[in-house]
């Protein structure tokens, strides 16, 4: 397949796909269409595209679930003003809960409550799950088997991240004093 055509095709696919596309997905797709291309080739095309769009109004962005085109960050405010009703604002309580899950996952509701000193509102957990940012990944094997929460790829996509490691760093959880029988140790080990 000619390189120019491969590039046009990948570009077009990214612009019309309903979700971000990974290199693997692109390769599979091209193969299905009888256009066998190596990952290296596809990756090169993506690099070129990223370069081509660097100064444009839309840009190629890699997020957790793959590559997607999105508007330049500087334009967000203007565009939001035009046809979003209002960009969503999240409450401090929601952000803290989300931050705890993001930075200290996997984590139970009890852990969250302990650190925030407030009971976690069911509404917040529901919102986080409905947005697809947070999911239950298991249970802690203690009495009551509380659910363990973790963040999802959609969370990363929404915040323009490819990986949890890209989250800006915060201080490590301080060492526990005796008696405090709960969480962070476990979260550290799985992190």
């Amino acid at each position, binding site marked *: 397949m000619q390189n120019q055509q491969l590039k046009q095709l990948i570009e*077009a696919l990214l612009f019309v796909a309903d979700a971000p596309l990974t290199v693997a997905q692109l390769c599979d797709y091209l193969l299905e269409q009888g256009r066998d291309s190596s990952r290296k080739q596809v990756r090169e095309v993506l690099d070129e595209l990223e370069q081509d769009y660097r100064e444009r109004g839309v840009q190629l962005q890699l997020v957790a679930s793959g590559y997607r085109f999105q508007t330049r960050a500087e*334009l967000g405010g203007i565009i939001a003003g035009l046809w979003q009703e209002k960009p969503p604002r999240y409450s*401090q309580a929601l952000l803290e809960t989300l*931050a705890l899950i993001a*930075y200290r996952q996997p984590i139970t509701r009890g852990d969250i409550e302990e650190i925030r000193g*407030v009971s976690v509102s069911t509404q917040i957990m529901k919102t986080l799950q409905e947005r697809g940012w947070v999911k239950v990944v298991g249970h802690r094997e203690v009495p009551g088997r509380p659910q363990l929460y973790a963040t999802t790829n959609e969370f990363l996509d*929404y915040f323009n991240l490819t990986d949890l490691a890209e989250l800006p760093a915060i201080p490590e959880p301080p060492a526990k004093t005796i008696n405090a029988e709960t969480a962070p140790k476990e979260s550290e080990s799985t992190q």
Partner: protein
Amino acid sequence: MDASNPSPQQQSLPLGFVRGEPVIEKPEDLYIPPDALELILESFSGPMDLLLYLIRRQKLEITELPILPITKQYMEYVDMMKELKLELAADYLVMAAMLAEIKSRMLLPRPPAEEDDEVDPRAELVRRLQEYEAIRQGASHLDELPQSGRDHFVVHAETDAKEHIQQQLPDIALAELAVAFAHAMAQAELQHHHQVQREKLSTRERMSRILDMLQTQQRLRFADLFVAAEGKQGVVVSFLAVLELVKEALIDVVQVDAFSEIHISTRGQVYAEPTA
């Protein structure tokens, strides 16, 4: 609890009114315009947040946690909250109790032997505050990250590709058809309790073909139904088809005079247009 109950009792002059409720006292070393007070109180996301605020306001490190003044100030806020936002109070009261407990433990003289081992009663709270502060930082990082729908928008281009989608039609294997037929007939067998005879397919096909021809030509010459190339079997099939069609009252066979040309036509046709 009776904050909602306008109290006739004698009181000091209120500082102001928040949600119609008089605010009598102001926190020490702090003056907040009363209408801003509620906003401020609401802006705390919980007791840890308030506590952290009180410590930071004094430009202190968390580890220093001056338990006496902090507890006092905390209580003042909680009292205000009790008046303004009852539903918030529970979590704040738990913290108040904890502060009070720490305070009392710090005031207790320690037995000298235990002095070394004894953990600072503030230690656990300090740890929680540190962790909470880290998380608050995380929350503000999240808030600052570019977000979809706020800072950037996922874009899309139109495509005519969907017009190219060939509607994939379901496939059927020939064997499936036979099985379906057998199934339908077995079903019929069960229902009707009578034998369904297998018919010669080619006869059935010929019947269809004859009827089809009659769709376009009103009348067919009987002789035209027979094609020499088909051989004897073909003739037999066509003949059987005609007989079957007559039997099923689908066609009429008309011969005007003896030995004249035989014509066939669909039944309706005969009635509609009597042959000459």
